[in-house]
């Protein structure tokens, strides 16, 4: 029997950037906020002195324990899905701070084109440019409207960067860019030679000691290389644990409950009344009533909780009706393709680096180049990143080298510090056949169905990836590499979820028949339920998602506050532009 707890103003599910920003903003505004996190409590001391590649990078120390719950995955709508069983195939954060703790820290804004992708594509190229089955739609908000929220999040996180020569932004980044390593210099020079406009990757690995507007201090990055898939032991990588969670805690209005696994959003008469969760230490069920419920967890959890709770109409690919699970998208094994260069006479200090240390350019992103004669829309950033290679990771060898034995040993050691990779981070469109729903067979610890992903590639995906690989190879060649190996383009999705960039399913828009949320991330079907995170992206832009998640969380916080004061729907529904 669930134990009923004292009602609060707001209950938030998830403690990463999405849930963290909302928690901070609403507790600052004087509302009582409870944040429920399924994983363990984590503090800075948990990340001190544990720079261990095997434990974190190869054994996924910070990731979800899949013995309790995972997802299933398949390619086609009539196939049986198989569970994603191991952590080698699945990377989803958990614990206080969750995904914000293990992230790399690259923080790009999406482009004006992204937010109005349908209208702008039709305007420039005509309706025929959009293939049948591509679920292209505007986001119900413009870049101009999003800019103040981007700026707020960048200041909270202390983003370090320089202006993109092609970008539009009113203010400078709050901190100067990270240092330029020799591979980055080489990349930028090569990009310039080829007529592009390179600049430093905007980074949440902070370049100098910084105090954010909430008074939280983020330290300077040490380039120690233990960044992506690790918590930072210096508090120098911006995450929710060094920024918004302590900000919320200082107000006295906030409580973070860890090891609290939310199973249902409770609702009655079209309104959410609270959530039901289990204390995973004791097995005790609790009901936490609240005026406003915020789902601020990862894309998979946000989708699954709505489906399990029977909120919103589930998407049916056969009729293309329904909204929950629709426009599932993200970056899979066809993204981050490019070319690797091997040098005979250059040796870099590749053991040093930082998660978001790198060079990039956007000449081939969004609609910054003419697509009239191309067989795809949108584009992506080209990046060279210097994460800092661990000893296990640095085993890249030229194509044709055996994967083991004497020749592998010789070449993997020889090239350990003599290779670079340049990749393309293409945008991913949504399609009628890519969606999420509940699996009919596989269950979690409590007997609830797992989330099922149905996902396959299209000609657009393969064309954009191929385009990117060719461009990356030209750059690597211009950098002077002696051997240039181009990545293959996978024909099909391999059902390995290692990138962490999964989005959609509970998307924003201006038309309730094609979107679950309005542009404050308020549910059309349930006005006191807000769903915050990349699950709101109608498509995936040609960049890493976090800045947009952070910005949307600030916008949602503003909306929630308005709702708590006045009630009702915050925007009016209208027939939107849609493919």
């Amino acid at each position, binding site marked *: 029997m669930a134990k009923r707890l004292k009602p609060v103003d707001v209950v938030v599910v998830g403690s990463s950037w999405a849930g963290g920003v909302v928690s901070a903003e609403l507790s600052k505004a004087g509302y009582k906020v409870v944040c429920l996190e399924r994983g363990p409590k984590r503090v800075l001391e948990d990340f001190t002195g544990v720079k261990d590649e*095997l434990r974190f990078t190869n054994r996924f120390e910070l990731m979800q324990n899949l*013995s309790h719950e995972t997802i299933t995955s398949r390619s086609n709508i009539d196939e049986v899905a198989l569970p994603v069983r191991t952590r080698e195939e699945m990377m989803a954060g958990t614990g206080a701070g969750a995904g914000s703790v293990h992230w790399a820290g690259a923080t790009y804004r999406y482009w004006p084109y992204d937010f109005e992708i349908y209208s702008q594509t039709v305007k420039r190229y005509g309706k025929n440019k959009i293939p049948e089955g591509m679920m292209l739609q505007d986001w119900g908000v413009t870049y101009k409207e999003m800019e103040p929220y981007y700026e707020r999040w960048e200041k909270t996180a202390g983003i370090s960067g320089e202006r993109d020569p092609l970008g539009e932004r009113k203010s400078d980044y709050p901190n100067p860019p990270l240092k330029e390593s020799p591979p980055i210099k080489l990349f930028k020079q090569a990009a310039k030679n080829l007529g592009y406009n390179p600049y430093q990757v905007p980074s949440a690995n902070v370049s100098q000691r910084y105090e954010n507007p909430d008074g939280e201090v983020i330290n300077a990055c040490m380039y120690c290389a233990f960044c992506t898939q690790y918590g930072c032991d210096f508090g120098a990588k911006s995450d929710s644990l060094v920024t918004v969670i302590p900000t919320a805690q200082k107000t006295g209005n906030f409580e973070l409950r860890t090891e609290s696994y939310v199973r249902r959003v409770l609702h009655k008469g079209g309104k959410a009344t609270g959530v039901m969760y289990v204390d995973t230490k004791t097995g005790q069920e609790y009901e936490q009533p609240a005026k406003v419920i915020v789902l601020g967890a990862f894309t998979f959890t946000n989708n699954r909780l709505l489906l399990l709770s029977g909120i919103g109409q589930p998407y049916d690919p056969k009729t293309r009706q329904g909204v929950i699970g629709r426009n599932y998208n993200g970056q899979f094994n066809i993204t981050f*393709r490019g070319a690797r260069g091997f040098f005979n006479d250059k040796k870099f200090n590749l053991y040093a680096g930082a998660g978001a240390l790198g060079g990039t350019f956007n000449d081939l992103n969004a609609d910054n180049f003419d697509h009239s004669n191309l067989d795809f829309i949108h584009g992506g950033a080209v990046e060279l990143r210097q994460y800092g290679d661990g000893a*296990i990771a640095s085993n890249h060898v030229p194509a044709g080298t055996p994967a083991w034995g004497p020749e592998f040993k010789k070449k993997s050691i020889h090239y350990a510090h003599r290779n670079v990779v340049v990749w393309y981070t293409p945008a991913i469109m949504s399609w009628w056949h890519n969606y999420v729903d509940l699996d009919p067979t596989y269950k979690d610890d409590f007997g609830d169905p797992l989330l099922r992903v149905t996902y396959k590639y299209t000609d657009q995906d393969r064309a954009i990836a191929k385009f990117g690989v060719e461009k990356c190879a030209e750059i690597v060649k211009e950098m002077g590499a002696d051997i240039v190996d181009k990545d293959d383009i996978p024909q099909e999705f391999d059902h390995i979820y290692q*990138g962490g960039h999964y989005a959609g399913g509970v998307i924003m828009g201006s038309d309730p028949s094609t979107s679950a949320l309005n542009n404050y991330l308020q549910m059309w079907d349930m006005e006191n339920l807000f769903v915050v995170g990349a699950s709101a992206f109608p498509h995936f832009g040609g960049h890493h998602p976090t800045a947009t998640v952070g910005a949307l969380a600030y916008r949602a916080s503003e909306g929630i506050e308005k709702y708590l004061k006045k009630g009702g729907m915050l925007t009016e529904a209208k027939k939107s532009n849609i493919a």
Partner: protein
Amino acid sequence: MTDQHSDKDEKKGLSRRQFLKNTGMVAGGVVGGSLLGGLLTNEYQKKQEAQIKEEAAKGAALQEARMFFSRKEDFDILGAATERLFPQDDIGPGAIELGVPYFIDKQLASYWGTNAKEYMRDPFRQNSEEHDYQHKDSQKDKTGPNTDSQTPVPTPRYQSRLTRAEIFIAGLRKMEQVSRDKFKKKFVDASPDQQDQVLKMFENGKVEMQGVDSVTFFNLLLKTTIEGVYSDPLYGGNKNMQGWKMKEYPGPRASFADVIEAEDFVKMDLQSLKDYQKFA
């Protein structure tokens, strides 16, 4: 004054090595003057270093016992196989000397070997579809923004009801059987070339196994071998940091801020997690 100073040093546990470090003698400082020069090479120091080495060797040897593998024969096959994957040569030691078989033994005894954090519920589909997944050749280092840092071995989808530890036992015994069938020899007695032929049959999925595909076993074997060569010595492989030495990998450090802009390659003394945790 002098006494006070030495008291303080003792309280801080300031070792001789630390003293040398602080005075800049170890960390790239120029050694000048006969006194310091003599200090570095005197008999006392030689003796002390020999003693430390001997103790270290003894300590490591005590940990080199089988924790997971009960049959010595299985463990010997494992050793011979890993040595073919990462052989000794003029660059440096191979898998056996690096302690890789003990590394794998310890890993298989851990939560990872027993698949404690993996989804291991029925039904496990054992059909043609599953076969295809096992054979999918997806390079792990190309599957996402955060994964350039993965061991570059293929990762087929895991759809076996066997744990990794069980897959190893089954795989090693199957290798033995293949070697005996094909060459009329025990795997450990087969020639290096014959051993490679057996390994290639597994790598190409040419061997029939029950409940798991041979390529899945091979990929696990290769992945753990590379991990054993290069992971922190605390796990039993990369013995005396010799894997890192070959690769000129410096180990975990508090900061590379001074190195990040350097045009030339900076070679450093090796440091393990044990060293790092002393200061963390």
